[in-house]
């Protein structure tokens, strides 16, 4: 069951990783999420989610090169795996399917 379901925040993180392409590491992901959602994302929360996504096999990670920034510590870069891509597309399909069957949707009336 694990690999099949995507939580809302998990989906956001996954999308962000995909969007950042080569630069997806924890701090950058936090910043990007904050920029798009307007919510403060805590490093601790993002870290946990990244860890869980990796466990589910939706992302994979590699260590970058050491630089003088970050006290000489390397970054861990994330990349969406095939399974991750499928998961994202499925999630989008579910939504699109639902959107499609809504007959008329007028934001002013809401």
């Amino acid at each position, binding site marked *: 069951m694990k690999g099949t379901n995507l939580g809302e925040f998990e989906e956001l993180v996954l999308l962000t990783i995909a969007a950042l392409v080569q630069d997806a590491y924890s701090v950058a992901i936090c910043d990007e999420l904050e920029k798009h959602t307007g919510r403060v994302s805590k*490093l601790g929360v993002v*870290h946990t989610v990244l*860890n869980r996504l990796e466990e589910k096999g939706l992302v994979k990670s590699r260590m970058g090169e050491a630089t003088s920034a970050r*006290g000489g*510590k*390397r970054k*861990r870069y994330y990349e969406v795996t095939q399974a991750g891509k499928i998961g994202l597309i499925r999630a989008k399909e579910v939504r699109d399917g639902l959107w499609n069957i809504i007959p008329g949707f007028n934001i002013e009336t809401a």
Partner: protein
Amino acid sequence: MKTNLKKGSSENGQPPRWAQVFLAWYCRPSLLEDLEGDLNEYFDRNLRKKGARYARLVYMIDVLKFFRPYTVRKPDFLNLWIHYLMIGSYIRTSRRSLVRNKLFSFINIIGLAVSMSVGLLVIAFLADLYAYDDFQEKKDRTYRIITHQQATGQNGIDVASTSIKVGRKLGETIPGVEDFTIMRSGFSGDARIGQNAFPLEALWADQSFFKVFTFPLVTGDPGSALKEPYSLVLTEKTAKKLFADADPMGQTVRFDTINYVVTGIAKDVPHLSHLRFDALISFASADATLGKTDEYLYTWDNVWNNYVYLTLPKGETPEDAQRALDRLNTEENKAMIGQQVTVSLQPLKDVALGNHLSNNIGAATSPLVVWVLIGLAFVIILSACFNYTNLSIARALRRSREVGMRKIMGARKSHVLGQFMAESVMIALLALLISFGLYLFLRKEFLALSPEISELVSLDLSLQSILGFVALATLTGLAAGFLPAVFLSRINAVSVMKDASGLKLFKHIGLRKTLIVLQYTLSLAFIATTMIGYGQYKGLLNFDLGFSTQNVLNIKLRGADPAVLIKELEELKEVTGISQSMMVTSVGASYGALMKYKPGDSAIVWQNRVDEHYLSVHKHNLVSGSNFLLRPSKENESEVIVNQQVLKRFNIAGQDPQKALGQFVTVDGQKLSIIGVLKDFHYGTLENKIEPVVFRYSKSQPNGYLNLKIVSQDPAATMAKIERLWKSFDKVHPLEARFYNNQIEKVYSRYSTMVKVIGFVAVLAICIASLGLLGMVVFTTETRLNEISIRKVLGASEIELVYLLCKGFLALLGIGALIALPVTYLFFDKIVLTRFAYHQPIGISELFSGVLLVMMLALLLIGSQTAKAARNNPARVLKSK
């Protein structure tokens, strides 16, 4: 903000060190690096935006927040397994190292052993206090009723006793009480059996006594032994004393005019019982004697001699019973005028080691005493740990190759750490063996220190205390070995194998110096405390009380008119004066009386009843007036002698002693004229201020004291003569005669005990600190032997060399003294001596003599070692290199 940034560039620009270490410790290696990086990145951001303080705070919080199941590393069973396999090797190398450095092993082991023996004593003491009343089968559900008495406008008193009425009400109105028993203290009299008489003290107790308490009866029925009036239960010991080998059951014992029947023999009371008795008398007897004549016995506010204990059923909590007592309090206090009496429950397990209560029925120790003892032991053990730490780090050079070798063979940091911790624990356990021997000796001395202590505890070995001993040794070992183990485990294997001298031995010199200063500060503070304490104690004994206690012998009378005895005593040529008094002043006892002068103004004054010789025997000084002129019987009393404080308190005749003569005052309803005014003297102890005191005339005091002025070359022979006279005068009671000065000494005996204990601890602290210093001096001179030799070759004199080696240590001792002396002085001046209304100033010689002694000892140590090094033949030293 700007200053923040500036500071940030140096120390504060880094994340907190401990947080980094903590993170590295708990985090899984696979996650560690990028987590550290992330935290660093956020740290830098916060540093720029909000300053160093904020950044460091956030870093710390984040490190703590990341402590989660998925980040924490799994326990490493492989490492534990390796430790287990290596234990044999650890023991072997430890043993070799111990044997190789005999002096240092000796210093470490002896230091630890000596200090731990104090710890053992404290543990045994505590174990005894916690084991109090453990023999009571219902200990955990037995409660005592204690009382708070609050007279309007005065300080309230907490007493362990309560009123009989509470006990009576327990049975009637309070639900959920399984059993309760009422007791009363103060029964005392001569037990007469046939022609023989024995003084005996007993407790009154009702028939439920044996239901609440576990005091097994040898013979007799526990349910009914204390039921009937005039029943008597004896302990085995008392029965033996009274009846020798005859069967006491059913025998009659007469007190005054009343016959009591022995209905039971109880086993002797165990040592660790807060409740102790020689005999029990049925409470029904108190009802039949005291209760008949005195209705006050049963009132709500008569809370001074009665004790109520109760048991709750299994599994009950005391809240319900306490609520019922609260209701009882409110109800009964409605009728009280001028005072409130509130009762509450105290668990039996809190009785022996509880807060101070007056009228305690048995031994009770204040938690403060316990904490002081723990503190003393802690400080001493810490000092010995310092020695171990200091010497081990200093000697690390010798072990560095071993550590290097182990690391090259694959030992990890944690293995080396474990090895050295294990070694120190082993040494501590070894020291425990010696320590135990010392403890056995110390225990004897401690119990002999004062009768109160041997009364209180037995210090017998128990399972708890032995477990405590081993735990103490283990903890001591861990504490002592921690820093050296950390230091050794950090050694870099490659560099140490290449060149051992590259080891930064003196890197931790600051730490070692601090430890030495701390040790000496403690030792000096202790010795100064001892000296000042002793000086003050002597000061208390020799204090000018305002009258003479020199060569005065006080004999306690036991109810017989002493006229015959006085006549016989007067014949003795050693006795130069005899007086009678109701009580002995200045030893803590006090008798109050209500005094009135002007209408509407009354106050409690202290009183003594004396005869016409009292003033001359005690050399009391009269400011004005004279001794008693008349010799009236008690009903016709008309004269009173007052002290200056009385004139001051009641403002009699403008406080003029001359004019006050002839003025009338009312004392306890008697109208008396002032015949003399005494110079102020100490009626109470020196802890209290001088208060108003009156002397009233009394021709004879059969229950008071005879005061004999003795002039004798041979006090023992005189005492023997007096004893002979006493024996023919009072055949029942043994002579109870004490010299006044000894009585005063007894009043302040707890201070002498304290001084002895602290003095002993001071000696230990000094020994341990000296041992540590010796070790450090030997080590320093050894390592600097080459330097010394070269200096000598180049022309340095021995004196110069000794000075060179000494000065560092002398500076440390100087710092120690500079801290210890002012602290000790302030401690006494601001805290201890404020308890005494009268005391002597702190002597400078007292403050410095001890310090000088310790300094001399240290100088001798340092001097002898450095001189030895300086006298070395430089040629030989340098040749062997």
